[in-house]
């Protein structure tokens, strides 16, 4: 599938006027000198997804559609399988010994569990930001961002420009531009997390998974990341795992509620929080359990 196709698809559900606006803003972004290409998100489709740790079934058959250029929040109590599920999407789940996944996950029309698909390539296209900021301790701020590109074996291109573009994209440029040589772990927690986001977008993925990206951060840093998420969705499809229901309410277009490895309900965020279709969802979002 070409980029043009994907962007048309992104605009399908929006009204004509909005679409024009979106086109306009995309044009602006493309003409921006720091933008290398007008990357855009892709849809992710889960069909009958099951995930196992050894013999125990953690995900019990989930069907779910992630729309391109939308933020989809995954909520649910601890241990309900949200992290496991999103880790299946970039095939990080199988890195755990004895863990495996069954079912179908499609990036647009491409089956990412297909026999001829390179798992390394999947992870380049579907990036991930982790719960705890994990910059590489031996590397400077600059090298941390460049690592995204270098580790995946890409050469050439203007690395300086890539680093600046990524740091700008992560809203960190102004804070670190004078000390790019300093170690990445010298930054504050919130800055480290934005550094990790910069590192992720340096690879130019199409989908970004964020696994509770704010759970180790204070409210101010959290707010910055949330603002960033709202900006990032213009170019990427965002899958956001969160424990924080207010956070889902603030940034997510769609919210999915999971319980014991099953998908209970997925709908517009507003509907999930005001008028959920399932009693269990209602109990959870109203704080009766979890």
């Amino acid at each position, binding site marked *: 599938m070409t980029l043009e196709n994907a962007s048309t698809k992104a605009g399908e559900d929006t009204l004509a006027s909005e679409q024009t606006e979106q086109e306009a803003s995309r044009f602006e972004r493309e003409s921006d000198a720091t933008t290398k290409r007008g990357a855009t998100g892709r849809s992710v489709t889960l069909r009958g997804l099951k995930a196992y740790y050894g013999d125990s079934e953690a995900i019990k058959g989930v069907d779910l559609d992630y729309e391109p250029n939308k933020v989809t929040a995954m909520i649910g109590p601890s241990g309900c399988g949200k992290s496991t599920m999103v880790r299946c999407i*970039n095939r*990080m789940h199988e*890195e755990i*010994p004895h863990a495996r996944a069954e079912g179908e996950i499609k990036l647009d029309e491409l089956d990412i569990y297909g026999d001829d698909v390179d798992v*390394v*390539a*999947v*992870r*380049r*296209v579907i*990036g*991930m930001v*982790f719960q*705890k900021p*994990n*910059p*590489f*301790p*031996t590397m400077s701020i600059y090298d941390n961002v460049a*690592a*995204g590109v*270098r*580790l*995946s*074996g890409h050469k050439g291109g203007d690395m300086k420009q890539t680093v600046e573009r990524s740091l700008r994209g992560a809203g960190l440029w102004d804070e670190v531009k004078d000390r790019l040589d300093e170690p990445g*772990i010298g930054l504050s927690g919130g800055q480290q997390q934005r550094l*990790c986001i910069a*590192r*992720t977008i340096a*690879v130019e993925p199409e989908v970004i998974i964020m696994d509770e990206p704010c759970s180790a951060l204070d409210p101010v840093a959290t707010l910055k990341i949330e603002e960033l998420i709202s900006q990032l969705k213009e170019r990427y499809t965002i899958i956001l795992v969160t424990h924080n229901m207010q956070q889902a309410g603030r940034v997510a277009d769609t919210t999915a509620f999971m319980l014991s490895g099953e998908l209970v309900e997925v709908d517009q965020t507003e509907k999930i929080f005001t008028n959920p279709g399932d009693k269990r969802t209602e109990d959870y979002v109203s704080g009766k359990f979890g």
Partner: protein
Amino acid sequence: MNAQPASLPGVSPRRRRTDKVARVLLLSATLIALVPLVLVVYYLIKKGIGAWNLDFFTTDPSGRFFGDPGGIRSAIVGTTLIVGLATVIAVPTGIGVALYLVEYGSESRFANVVRYFVDVMTGVPSIVFGLFIYIVLVLGGVAGGFAGWKGSIALGLLMLPVVTRASEVVLKLVPDSLREAALALGAPRWRVVWKVVLPTALPGLVTGSLLAIARAAGETAPLLFTAFAVKATTTNLGAQMNSLPMQIFSDVRQAQDRLVERAWGSALTLVGMILLLTLVARLVQRRSRLA
């Protein structure tokens, strides 16, 4: 509301007593452990420092029965070369084994067997390695009889499990979150190991290797059967080679005071060299971001 003012019982006399006894016991254990250490260093310096002068380090043993016995240059050069070659053999191999155990084999049955044998090898007395090389390479007549490089192999065998064990521990200390971060960026596993795991573990790997080197440098038994000893300085690892432990071993059994003094001087030199290595290891470790 509780009418009584709050009160808690004080520390019981029994607990106070037990605490005192335990503290005294632990302190005396520490002191007892320090006694031999201090004595060894004291005697080494007292008896060895007299032998130290410029000639001591710059001349070879003369072999003369009377008069000037000469210095220990050949022993210093020999130890440096033999241990150097042993390091080249053991350190890359040991780190390689550790990488396999941590990054690739981790849970497999084969890895567990390897781990078990590495543990066993750590406990094998050094003379066994010397004997093994003696039988296989020296008596076997591979490229002649006694040779420096055969001593290196014996020492390398001795170092290998030490390096492997130390490296495995350090590699395990590298947080999995870093491996995950790199994998999630779309890095192939070999690049994750090369660019993230190894650099992060580097200070620890250096420390572990230096400690293994320090241990090997003081070994006599493996060299006794393999490198043997000559008086003159040689840089040819294919020939017989002197070394500090061998020098001490042969000198200390002599009747002449000057030879015995040279043994003490050699011992002090050896300890000095090892101390230097340990200091370097410490400095490197201080720079470690994992510790």
